């Protein structure tokens, strides 16, 4: 299958390991992975902050970049992020309609219909749950709000993780509670966001997992940033990184940067 990859702006710039793993995984499964280089961002940050007009050019760029899927240039589009997939499927067309760009909205809807979050692509489209991965580590999984509620990916990530050879998968208490990221919420309501994060971190640490995984690097950046600040032994990896890991080419959990230390720094 010819699959176009939407890498997401945040992973392209800050967490290339997630799209790299997505490419490796899908190529290993025998698929072509294209990276349309005119892509940038889905527009979610603008939309969720209320800047709908300013989101339109960003959305337009995304839709035009991936519109060739409608002419069978590719068979599907994959995006390793639940919240970006959610924005593409539930916000882009609405924002275009509101800006009076109904033609763009129509294309956005059609492109969105061919766009899949990674676990959806694997389980629903490629119909595979055992991807031949090997990852002998203790892992807990945060399902992320938008994957769970906007997309309804359900237990697809668990179906995939349960098939990974050597993995010790432990349940995350209160897994369906938001980590407190929420994009600009994390800075506009920083105190509330931090309170939510502290509870998430406590639950993660309770599992004793070496790795916290999720299908979205924005949430992982948030929880990972908090774990690192706390000096936790648990570090973060995207679902794709675990699924891309094999006996032949094993991935190792990133080192805990300040394990055992807890430094409080006043910034204000």
């Amino acid at each position: 299958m010819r699959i176009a990859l939407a890498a997401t702006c945040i992973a392209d710039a800050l967490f290339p390991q997630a799209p790299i793993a997505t490419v490796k995984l899908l190529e290993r499964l025998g698929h072509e992975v294209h990276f349309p280089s005119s892509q940038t961002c889905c527009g979610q940050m603008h939309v969720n902050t209320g800047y709908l007009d300013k989101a339109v050019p960003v959305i337009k760029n995304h839709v035009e970049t991936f519109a060739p899927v409608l002419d069978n240039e590719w068979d599907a589009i994959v995006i390793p992020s639940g919240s970006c997939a959610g924005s593409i499927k539930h916000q882009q067309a609405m924002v275009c309609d509101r800006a009076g760009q109904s033609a763009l909205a129509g294309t956005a809807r059609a492109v969105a219909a061919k766009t899949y979050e990674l676990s959806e692509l694997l389980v629903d489209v490629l119909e595979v749950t055992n991807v031949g991965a090997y990852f002998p580590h203790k892992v807990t999984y945060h399902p992320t709000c938008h994957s769970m509620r906007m997309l309804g990916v359900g237990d697809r990530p668990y179906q995939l993780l349960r098939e990974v050879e050597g993995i010790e998968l432990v349940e995350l208490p209160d897994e369906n509670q938001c980590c407190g990221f929420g994009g600009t919420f994390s800075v506009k309501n920083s105190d509330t966001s931090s309170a939510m994060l502290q509870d998430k971190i406590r639950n993660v640490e309770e599992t004793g997992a070496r790795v916290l995984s999720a299908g979205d690097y924005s949430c992982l950046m948030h929880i990972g940033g908090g774990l690192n600040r706390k000096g936790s032994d648990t570090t973060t990896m995207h679902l794709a990184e675990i699924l891309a890991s094999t006996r032949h080419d094993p991935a190792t959990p990133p080192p805990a940067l300040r394990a055992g230390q807890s430094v409080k720094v006043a910034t204000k």
Partner: protein
Amino acid sequence: MKTFLGIPTGRPTHDVASPQPYAAQPGHASTLAGTARGNAMQNPNEPLRWGTNFPDAAREALKNEQMRRNLGHATSTIRNKRATVVGEAPDWEDLRDAGSQIKVNVAAQLPALLEEFERNFTARGGTVHWARDAKEANHIITTLIKETGSQEVVKVKSMATQEIGMNEYLEAQGIAAYETDLAELIVQLGDDLPSHILVPAIHRNRTEIKEIFERRMESLPAEMTDAPRELAMAAREHLRKKFLRAKVAVSGANFGVASTGSLTVVESEGNGRMCLTLPETLITVMGIEKIIPTFEDLEVFMQLLPRSSTGERMNPYSSIWTGVSPGDGPQNVHVILLDNGRSRALADDVGRAALKCIRCSACLNVCPVYERVGGHAYGSVYPGPIGAILTPQLTGTAGHSDPNNSLPYASSLCGACYEACPVKIDIPTLLVHLRARAVEQDKADHRPTAWGAAMSAATVIMSDSKKFAFAEKGLGALRLAAGKKGYVHNVPLPIISGWTDSRDLPTAPKETFRQWYKRTHPNGALASDLPAADTKPTDDSSPSSAGTESETTHD
């Protein structure tokens, strides 16, 4: 006087007859352009707008760890009860769809339904009054009570009367309004403000309740402890005298049935039934959006509401009355149909979905933000996710510094509220819509903001991959900031410091994804090495994997 949360309590009883529009507080960073600030001060008379903006109020509330534990315990208990009884209903999603659609239809034909209700309610001996706002509603209520010669009323728990500040208004007119719902009684006796739609005293624990009772109730049992049963019995004794002597009752309504002219109150304690049957005069205040078309529609909501609200299959007391029944119950029956901003909300094609709300409070109980900051931080009698979308629409917002403008941002958009809502209000979408309206208002006011500037810059960069790739190189600065540590601890810039207060930032990678892809896929996508029946010939991609690194070879 302040509560233990530091929030002003009990709205002062003076000057409630003419509530002033919102005025920014002294010291507030920004004021309304062109408005005289002479007597600028917070106006605690507004039940839909008190206190400071949400982030500041939340910061204060978060300091109260005992309250956070109380709330966490209380909301998780209700959450679990709800989940159990919702799980028992095999047609739950169908019920939600039905409830939502009925409410959508109501919004579409509201004027006709209200007139139909008026005809039927009047034909059965009741009197219908129309109130554009809180002031008109309070005036009508006062006049009706004064006509009876009574100096006191008993009350059924009602959000509509909270919303118009009725108790305080009546008090200023020399009329005592006694709350008879146990939790509302606790709030009233404590000179406090409600913090939850269903459980208004959720922020109080039983030790505090005992202390309030001892301070405010007469003839308490000498040896009363803080056991819930003893507290309830004390409240019962206190209230029973008031029920038996009351000549006038004031209630809200959960539903008004247009086709029959019936009103409905759904409750748990029986205090409502007392108020609705014992007094001679019954005055009901109902928001105009509470109309439903037919009696049959009640069956949908009577299944949705108790399960969503208290986590019960059916509530203990459901009272339905239709005008006057000669010789039975109140003989002087009135209803006040309240607008108070609802027409404004109805005019907004997206925002009007908030008017579907049946005040069950399920969204509060599942909200991670509400659970941590409590209800008072929302500065309105409608807290939580529904408050964040309803309050600013009911009041309208008066410019950038209006605290109600901060409410749509009081959410991480996690979507738990939408999932729980029995009438499927897409609260996250409405929050985003109201954020967009706040941004549009700033634009119309020619008010430049740091966020606006940042978003404009981001649009330029993020709508063009060449500029984006160039900007990615700038992220090398993060690597410099991180040094050998491999993370960024402290960025003393506005906006970003909000992040680094409690979280580290990752450093930028040596190679972005697009650089990696270009290096490892110099001729575009690697050809698939498996035949795929559903793919067309791969003319558009490189047939060769030569030149790529080992990390991209196929296993």
